[in-house]
Each structure stands twice: as structure tokens, then as C-alpha cells.
């Protein structure tokens, strides 16, 4: 078996190990004792899967914004724009879209798990809690970003304008996620805790399960991100068949157009 075959086997083993760990952590999350001080203590376990989602969506948001920035820096023409630079710009756009798409998925998961938690613990599914509201508005920004992308047919304009929008949105998003829920009047009116980790309110087995879920979902995110970037890169290569790399990593020969008869000879 060649090196490629060994790597493929290793990859499969890692995937199996990841699935196993995910299962173990899920079972473990049901084994820890019920949390105290909740309306429905047994359902407070939603927290294990809710908590990593906003962390990841926030991280991916800033990663996506950074990739958008890298895309725009080239557009500004700080250096000579050769074909390599164009390709590099396209790659930054693919990375930005991959990170932001994944961030949007985690934003939706944050909303769903947050609504479930609110329903079982506070009795209402939506109450304009500052945290709920700030992530709803973050979801609107994500939605606007993807709506903007659909409005351009030219890939270069689509990439540059959506990157510009993402950079313009960074400031309101920082306000929504970090500042608004911590404003004194807002914080007082909210059921949602904002400093659970900093104040050391998550302890013992709960802290261990949450940490494990954060690590596993982060690994899952990185894996999904890499898959999405690979798919985007392949799409890019497929658009330009002449530059499609062969198995050995060399450019394929220019495609030969073979004449095809339109009439049926029989």
C-alpha cells in the first residue's frame, strides 16, 4: 500500500474515533447529576449543546471577516495584480464563505437550542431577552450577507462587495454580541447569564462535559470548514478545465474539443 493509501486509512480511523468520542460524550452528558436551580433540571442538559454554538459562531464570524479583509486588501491594489493574485483573492473569498456559512449554521443552532432552553426553563419560547435578540440580529446580518451574494452574477463583484459588507458589519456585530447584553440596564432585565465562565459558575462534571463538547464541536467545525473550502476550490478549478491538476499535481493538458454529430446516423 502506498503513502496515500496509509493516509486514507488513518483518516478513516480518525473519523471513527471522532464518532465514538461524540457518542461517549453524549452518553456522559446524561450521566452527570441534574443541575440545581432550574425549573426542569433534567432538561438543563440542553446547555451542553447550546453553549458551544455561540462561541463557535462568534469565532467563525471574526475568521470570516478576516478572510474578507484579506480578499479586499488585494482588490485595493497594494501590489501588482497578477493572475496568481486573482486566484489567491478567489481563495480568500472561498475561505470567507466557508467560515461564514458554518457560522450561520451555528447561529441557527444557537437560536434553536436557546429557544428550547427558554421554553422548558422560563416557560416562553421567545421573550426578547437581550441575548436572544442580539443573536437574532447577528442572524439577520448573516442573512443580509448571503442575500447580497445572490444579487451579483459576476463572481468578482460578488466576492468584493460581500467582503465589503462583512467588514462594515463587524462593528455592529461586536456591539450586539459583546456590548449590548452587558449594558447595566439590559443585563438587569435579562434571565440569561453573561459571565458564567468568568465567575466560575460552571463546575465539576458540568465543566468537564461542556469542555469536551466544545473541543469536539470545534474539531467538527474545522473538518467541515476544510471540506467546504476543498469543494469551493474544486468548483473554481472545474470552471477552468485547462488548469485542473492531474493526479501528480501537474496541470492537465488543454482540453480537446471533439466534433460531435448532432444527427443520428442510424
Amino acid at each position: 500500500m502506498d503513502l496515500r493509501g496509509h493516509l486514507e486509512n488513518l483518516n478513516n480511523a480518525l473519523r471513527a474515533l471522532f464518532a465514538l468520542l461524540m457518542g461517549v460524550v453524549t452518553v456522559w452528558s446524561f450521566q452527570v447529576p441534574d443541575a440545581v436551580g432550574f425549573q426542569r433540571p433534567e432538561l438543563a442538559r440542553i446547555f451542553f449543546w447550546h453553549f458551544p454554538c455561540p462561541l463557535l459562531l462568534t469565532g467563525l464570524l471574526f475568521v470570516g471577516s478576516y478572510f474578507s479583509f484579506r480578499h479586499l486588501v488585494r482588490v485595493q491594489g497594494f501590489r501588482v495584480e497578477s493572475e496568481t493574485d486573482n486566484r489567491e483573492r478567489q481563495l480568500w473569498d472561498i475561505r470567507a464563505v466557508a467560515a461564514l456559512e458554518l457560522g450561520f449554521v451555528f447561529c441557527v443552532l444557537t437560536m434553536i437550542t436557546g429557544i428550547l432552553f427558554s421554553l422548558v426553563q422560563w416557560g416562553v419560547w421567545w421573550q426578547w431577552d437581550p441575548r436572544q435578540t442580539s443573536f437574532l440580529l447577528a442572524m439577520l446580518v448573516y442573512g443580509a450577507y448571503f442575500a447580497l451574494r445572490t444579487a451579483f452574477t459576476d463572481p468578482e463583484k460578488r466576492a468584493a462587495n460581500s467582503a465589503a459588507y462583512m467588514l462594515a458589519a463587524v462593528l455592529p456585530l461586536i456591539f450586539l454580541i459583546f456590548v449590548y447584553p452587558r449594558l447595566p440596564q439590559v443585563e438587569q432585565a435579562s434571565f440569561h447569564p453573561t459571565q458564567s465562565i468568568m465567575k466560575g459558575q460552571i463546575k465539576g462534571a458540568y465543566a468537564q462535559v461542556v469542555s469536551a463538547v466544545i473541543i469536539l464541536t470545534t474539531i467538527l467545525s474545522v473538518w467541515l470548514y476544510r471540506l467546504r473550502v476543498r469543494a469551493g476550490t474544486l468548483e473554481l478549478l472545474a470552471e477552468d478545465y485547462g488548469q485542473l491538476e492531474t493526479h501528480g499535481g501537474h496541470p492537465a493538458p488543454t482540453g480537446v474539443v471533439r466534433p460531435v454529430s448532432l444527427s443520428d446516423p442510424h
Partner: protein
Amino acid sequence: MSSGWKAEILAVYRKELQTELRSKSGLVTAGLFSFVTVVTISLVLFNKNVNAPGSGLQDISAGLVWVVILFASILNLPRTFLLEEEQGTADLLRLFARPHAVYWGKVLFNILQVLGTATLVSVLFLGFTGTRVSVPWIYVVSLIGGSCSMAGAVTLCGAIVAQAANRAALAGAIAVPLLLPLVQLGVTGMRAAFGSGLVGGGQAAAVGLVAYAAIMLAIGPWIYAAIWKT
């Protein structure tokens, strides 16, 4: 600022002003929208004492003022860039002016437009509903800071969607998520100005609006310059 930059910015500003004064379309639309919405709100609040402590109407009034200013801005401000594409003058502008000058010229014109709209809305609203302003300086600073922030953000959104399909509707759709945090700050400031919220909170909100405006106006030209030639 060198005289070259100043001349370019003023040239773009004068162009916008003359174009608007020729057609008056934006001024009439924003003015009519503000008037109609304030009259509607006043009808809803008819025979109610909006200054009564604990009635909650001061909070609602603060929200209504900002909603009117928000939608009047979204209707009007993106036009500065959208019209360039619709009339086919965008390429000419790219030939004659630098991107920072174009953005600043247009944003200055838009700041004046929003300030005009905000003043009109304030005069009509306070006059029709009889709302009393307890802390006038917070009211004025919130209005000026909010207007500059809105002008900066909506002008940039107009530039971003200028070459997109369905650009007019899209400009509003992508601008609203960026403007909601500043509407929140504006409402907090105005509640304090109406005597409903804490004065300290109102001061912080007013300062926040000015900071938001400064950051948005500082990054706006750079972002615009990045998409200028695409």
C-alpha cells in the same frame, strides 16, 4: 486636508446638491414620508398624555421617532450611488475623482439630508404630540450622532449594492441589520432625554452614537475604495 482633496470632495458634494435641487425627488420623498408617518403616529396618540410618568408612552415615543428617521434614511440615502449606476454616470465619476473624495462628498450630502429629516421629524413630532424634552443636550447629541452614523452606514450600503440586481430593495434589506444597534442606542438616549430612562444611560448612549459615527465614517472610505473599481 490638501486643497486637491478638498476641491474634489466639494465638487462631488456640489454635484449631489445640484442634482437633488434639480429634481427634488429625494427631498420631497423624505419630507412627505416623515410628515405622513408623524401625522399617523400623532393620530394614534390622540388625547393621550405622552409625558405622564410611568405610562410607558415616553419610551414608545423615543422608539417611534427613531423608526421614522430609520425608514426615511433607508428610502433616501442609497439613491446617491444607485442613481449613478441607473443614469450611467458611475464610470465617468471613476475617471474624474478618487474613491475617498467620492465617498466623502456623498456622505457629506447624506449627513445634511438625514440631519434635515431628523430635524423635521423632531419638530413635527414634538409639536403634534406635545412630548416634553427634559434633557435637551442628550436629545440633540443623540440626533446628530445617530444621523451621522446612519449617513455613513447607508451610504456605504448604497455603494455596495449599486451594481447588484434589485438594488433599491436590497439596499434597505442589508442596511437595517447594520442600523439596528445604533437605533437601540438612539432610543436609549432619547428615552433619557424625554425623562424616562436614566440620564447616565442616556449620556453613555449619546457618546456611543458619536463613537459609532466616527468609526463608521473612518472605515467607510477605505471599504468603498476597495470596491471602487470592481
